[in-house]
């Protein structure tokens, strides 16, 4: 290990993650250019695919070194390099090589080498901002946290924000301006576009088209508007594959105008979700909603109740007290019926059996909680469902209480599908001369029947310009590609779900001199070499007329958002009249298209952290599969991993099958975003492209699907093979759960089987004498399985990505995993999420068996893992009943790529091949806080020291602290009746304990 760490120093010291050396950005750039210029890696990626290359590998290296067949073959190559270096390290590995140390020339005032700094900024996903605080070590952003000041975050984040750090350092990001694939300078582009622009001036821009994703940035919107005013005839089109057309249409239908719907879940005793996965990242406001939902999950206070009617099992669905699986098309019927029962929109049909009972239960419950309930509809449900939801909320008197309407966050709320269609027809009509595609990847993700890619390829649009982070499928079909600056590299602004404006502040100079969309638009608008900072500042200077602008600006930048910009609630009148039923063509099997829980619409395909992030229910990594219910699988004799061909009204796609308990019958769910062809080392040729079957008529779901078994199978990499606590010899009480009633008669039910703490022959070690005894409590009632903790942990602790082959072998490296356990009927099971970090057992079984004392107990009760002492016998892992230890079976860390060196947390060792690793309770944070406290002669204040998982958790389900302090939050939680130790009967005395899950079912809705 030691040797490997020297490797990293001896090459490219300036960017080494060693805590001491300093950053020189230009050197980094130089190095990046020389090591991985776009040409270099692209050709290598292409090469890696070819059979010749594979064949060569097998000639050069023995077959069966299957890492070679990884989708990430280049990393495999680097691993072998590193391994051989490690081997060289065998000899005299204790002598350190000379290490240079490079001070600043002029050190910035605020910089204290060795101490990180935090800056507020925000990430935008489909127009909705996640307000963030980003940690920076000597100018290198190293960790993304939520902005606790901002109501949309309150300190929480979602997986996409957490993982965006890796996007910044993605070595496959587009690194230069290109023209027809050749490297060009920005100036060449300037020359190139001058002609067309002047030409358009004459036509007042009749041939100019701008295609953007959903934009909520006031400054950018203003820039585009001014561009449009400079070219009055030019047109602005908007398209996102994960768009909210139905939401807009729904509010049009209900109110005659587009509005944004916000929910105030803290006030909701009863929540009904009509196919809305509002407890998982990607749903606007999810981070805040999770917090509000979790705050109402205290069984000792007023616990809320969640009903979910859904067409695809989701994290939200399995948290529900009552869940009703319905095919997507049937949900509208359910909504109609419900509406009828709460007295709006008469004429809703009634349902049978189960469904009717469920419906009746919900209806009664909702009416019993007028003004204290919420009915929400999923983005992919029909406009009618949204309209009905509005109507029902109105009828229940929720509007203004738990449901609030405001202006739309989207600056240009048009029907995006139509907008794109219009653009394509213009292209075919030869009306388009200059097409500017501002990020987004429509050539890959547009509905097939629109045929955007064809249009781009075949029609003669004089000049096609693509601005984007990656050199994508779309870029390949454009003349010019401009490498966009990542949000952590550029100035900008954006809006959170509540409309409040967040200032996007760069943490680092653009690694590849990229330009932000804002800057490009401004340039086209005639402001040569406009820079983002002035644009944003300038815009707000105009807005902020009253008072001292500088202090206002400084405050806004510092806080990360502009105070008082949240939208005011808006009074909108229901149009009244019945909501017409959407007519569905008859057809047997339905298919749902869903955003992927990990890689969203495909834009994160090259993000290794997200690719390897187990999806909340299937625990699948590196792939998408077609989900079907058990009944359907039995009928069609399909097994998980069987390949099938899905024929969606003539459009054929292939996919492996995953049998998902709780999936509605006669319905298939597929996930978008996979099967990218020009994504990068992690994302290219991974999974199956479902956009090929997605049409404007069936944007979210459609029926009439033919499913055909292909006969062959496809290996899927799931990190949890066995997903229930049931074993042939009885159920294991791993997750303690009960209904509210049971909990009330038997509060200590979870503790059964735990041995008395005095049960030992030995004199137990006395931790009470210490100032600190660290412990953690995880409230499974709050946890919604949002996966944040996993990515946060990965980012904080420099955890390696291992690739699909290794995950299949059972070697993924996550220090913290979220187990899911299904219970009950496979057709409609309930499920529990259980985050499992290291338990930090006081009687740690792993320690006793380590021959070299590489894992030992600290005086504060931590189970220390000393990587540099570990010789890798794996005995500790065998003896760990929780199997939380992870082993570097091969050289999983990438020691080569300079970008990764910049990204890593300098306070955490980079583990090398052959050593065990595991959760440390973020020992680096503990030490930092303890030392600061000691310098001030005080103790660490409760709550100031947070582990990475805890800090990122939007639900505040993970609480860490000093259990020697009876007043600490964690001590209080551990003193609750619900608190229990996992496998307590083994007397390992875990420091991590769980609060049992309590559900609050409605007897009348019991199926």
């Amino acid at each position, binding site marked *: *290990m*030691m040797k490997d*760490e*020297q490797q*990293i*120093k001896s090459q490219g010291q300036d960017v080494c993650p*060693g*805590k*001491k050396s*300093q950053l*020189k950005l230009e050197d980094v750039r130089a190095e990046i250019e020389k090591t991985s210029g776009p040409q270099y890696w692209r050709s290598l990626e292409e090469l890696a695919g070819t059979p010749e290359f594979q064949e060569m590998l097998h000639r050069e290296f023995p077959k069966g070194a299957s890492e070679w067949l990884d989708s990430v073959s280049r990393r495999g190559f680097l691993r072998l390099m590193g391994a051989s270096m490690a081997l060289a390290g065998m000899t*005299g590995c*204790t*002598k*350190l090589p*000379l*290490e*240079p*140390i*490079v*001070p*600043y*020339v*002029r*050190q910035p005032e605020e910089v*204290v*080498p*060795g*101490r990180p700094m935090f800056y507020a900024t925000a990430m935008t996903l489909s127009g909705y901002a996640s307000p963030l605080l980003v940690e920076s070590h000597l100018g290198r952003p190293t960790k993304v946290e939520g902005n606790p000041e901002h109501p949309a975050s309150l300190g929480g984040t979602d997986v996409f924000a957490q993982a965006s750090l890796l996007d910044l350092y993605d070595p496959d990001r587009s690194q230069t301006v290109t023209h027809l694939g050749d490297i060009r300078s920005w100036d060449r582009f300037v020359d190139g576009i001058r002609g067309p622009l002047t030409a358009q001036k004459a036509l007042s821009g009749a041939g100019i088209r701008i295609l953007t994703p959903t934009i909520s940035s006031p400054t950018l919107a203003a820039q585009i508007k001014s561009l449009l005013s400079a070219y009055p005839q030019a047109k602005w089109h908007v398209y996102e594959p994960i768009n909210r057309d139905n939401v807009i249409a729904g509010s049009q239908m209900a109110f005659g105008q587009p509005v944004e719907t916000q929910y105030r879940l803290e006030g909701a005793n009863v929540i009904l979700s009509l196919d809305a996965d509002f407890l998982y990242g990607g749903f606007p406001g999810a981070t805040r909603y999770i917090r509000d939902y979790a705050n109402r999950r205290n069984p000792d206070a007023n616990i809320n109740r969640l009903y979910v009617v859904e067409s695809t099992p989701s994290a939200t669905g399995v948290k529900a007290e009552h869940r009703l699986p319905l095919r997507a098309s049937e949900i509208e019927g359910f909504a109609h019926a419900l509406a009828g029962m709460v007295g709006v929109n008469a004429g809703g049909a009634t349902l049978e059996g189960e469904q009717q009972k469920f419906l009746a239960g919900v209806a009664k419950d909702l009416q019993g909680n007028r003004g204290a309930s919420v009915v929400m509809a999923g983005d992919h449900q029909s406009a009618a469902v949204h309209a009905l939801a509005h109507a029902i909320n109105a009828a229940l008197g929720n509007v203004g209480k738990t449901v609030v309407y405001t202006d739309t966050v989207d600056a240009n709320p048009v029907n995006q599908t139509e907008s794109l269609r219009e653009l394509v027809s213009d292209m075919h009509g030869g009306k388009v001369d200059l097409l500017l595609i501002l990020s987004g990847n429509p050539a890959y993700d547009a509905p097939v029947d629109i045929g955007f890619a064809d249009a781009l390829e075949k029609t003669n649009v004089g000049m096609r310009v693509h601005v984007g982070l990656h050199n994508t499928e779309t870029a390949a079909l454009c003349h010019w590609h401009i490498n966009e600056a990542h949000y952590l590299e550029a100035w900008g602004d954006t809006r959170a779900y509540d409309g409040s404006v967040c200032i996007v502040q760069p943490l680092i100079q653009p690694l590849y001199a990229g330009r932000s969309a804002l800057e490009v638009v401004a340039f086209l608008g005639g402001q040569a070499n406009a820079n983002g900072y002035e644009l944003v500042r300038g815009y707000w200077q105009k807005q902020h007329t009253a008072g001292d602008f500088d202090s206002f600006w400084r405050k806004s930048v510092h806080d990360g958002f502009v105070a008082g910009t949240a939208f005011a609630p808006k009074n909108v009148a229901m149009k009244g009249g019945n909501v017409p039923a959407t007519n569905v063509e008859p057809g047997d099997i339905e298919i749902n298209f869903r955003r992927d829980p990990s890689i969203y619409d495909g834009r994160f395909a090259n993000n290794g952290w997200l690719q390897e992030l187990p999806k909340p229910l299937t625990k699948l990594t590196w792939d998408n599969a077609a989900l079907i219910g058990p009944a359907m699988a039995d009928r069609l004799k399909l097994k998980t991993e069987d390949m099938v061909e899905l024929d969606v009204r003539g459009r054929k796609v292939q996919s492996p099958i995953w049998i998902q308990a709780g999936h509605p019958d006669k319905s298939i769910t597929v996930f978008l975003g996979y099967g990218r062809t020009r994504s990068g080392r992690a994302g290219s040729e991974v999974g199956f492209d479902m956009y090929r079957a997605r049409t404007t008529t069936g944007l979210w779901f459609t029926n009439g699907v033919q499913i055909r078994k292909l006969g062959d199978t496809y290996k899927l990499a799931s990190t949890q093979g066995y997903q229930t606590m049931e074993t042939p010899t009885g159920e294991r009480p791993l997750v303690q759960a009960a209904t509210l009633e049971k909990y009330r008669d038997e509060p200590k039910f979870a503790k059964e089987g735990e041995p008395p703490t005095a049960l030992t022959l030995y004199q137990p070690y006395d931790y009470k004498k*210490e100032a600190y005894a660290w412990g953690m409590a995880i409230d499974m009632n709050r946890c919604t399985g949002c996966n944040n903790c996993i990515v946060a942990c990965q980012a904080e602790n420099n955890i390696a990505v291992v690739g699909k082959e290794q995950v299949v072998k059972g070697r993924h490296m996550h220090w913290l995993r979220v187990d899911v356990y299904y219970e009950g009927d496979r057709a409609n099971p309930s499920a529990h999420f259980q985050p499992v970090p290291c338990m930090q057992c006081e009687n740690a079984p792993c320690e006793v068996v380590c021959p070299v004392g590489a894992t*030992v107990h*600290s*005086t*504060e009760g*931590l189970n*220390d893992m*000393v*990587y*540099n*002492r570990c010789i890798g016998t794996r005995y500790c892992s065998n003896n760990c009943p929780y199997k939380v230890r992870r082993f570097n079976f091969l050289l999983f860390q990438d020691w080569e790529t300079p970008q990764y060196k910049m990204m890593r947390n300098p*306070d*955490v*060792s*980079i583990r090398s091949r052959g050593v065990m690793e595991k959760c*440390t309770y973020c*020992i*680096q944070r*503990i*030490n930092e806080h303890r*030392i600061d406290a*000691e*310098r001030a*002669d005080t103790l660490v204040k409760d709550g100031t020291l947070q582990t990475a998982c805890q800090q990122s958790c939007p639900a505040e389900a993970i609480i860490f602290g000093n259990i020697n302090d009876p007043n600490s939050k964690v001590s209080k939680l551990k003193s609750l009746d619900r608190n229990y130790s996992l496998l307590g009967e083994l007397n390992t005395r875990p420091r991590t304990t769980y609060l049992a899950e309590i559900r609050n079912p409605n007897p009348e809705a019991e199926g």
Partner: protein
Amino acid sequence: MQIFHRSTNTLSRATIFGAVFVIAALFWAMAQIQRSPYVTYAGVAKPQPVPFSHQHHVTGLGIDCRYCHTSVETSSFAGIPPTKTCMNCHSQIWTNAALLEPVRESYRSDKSLQWTRVNQLPDFVYFNHSIHINKGVGCNTCHGPVDKMPLMYQFASLQMEWCLECHRAPEKFIRPREQVFNMRYEQPTSNKVVTVGDAKFEDQIALGRALIKKYNVRPPMDITTCSTCHR
């Protein structure tokens, strides 16, 4: 018949018993090499772009450590002065000394000086200057007589056993906080009294014990816990 000569008797025994000593000697030699300056760099002056003399700046000019190593009290990293710090003075004095050309060059071209790290720990060791300063560990306790070093060299072996010497018995080393940066500080003896507040001390152990209480230095068991230094 005889196969071997008389001498082989002595020879054979000599080899058998000799082997024992040879092996022992080998182990001893390896242990010595491990601890030798060749491996540890202790006492070895490493090549530097500018022959900076701590002796001159500290003893000669009486500049305090913290003037250059600014973050030593607040951060894990003591801080290597930016070129600017050098130029504060050297823009006035020795303005055209050839020796200082690299410094001026760096300042002009805005390219950093590339020093060679003198006190270097492996990357899996996380040392924090601020806490050691705060607990009364003097600069020269670890860095040696820097004020007498024309060329800077690493004073101690910086091997784990060396760290443990102090972590196991801090009382043998620590001094009053106000003396931390005093290069001339000597441990108390019967004829050299050290005063802390109004208490006078004539031997280090007594002083050490008192300071441990005063600065509440954590007990050896705590600071020899692995995660104190390894993460």
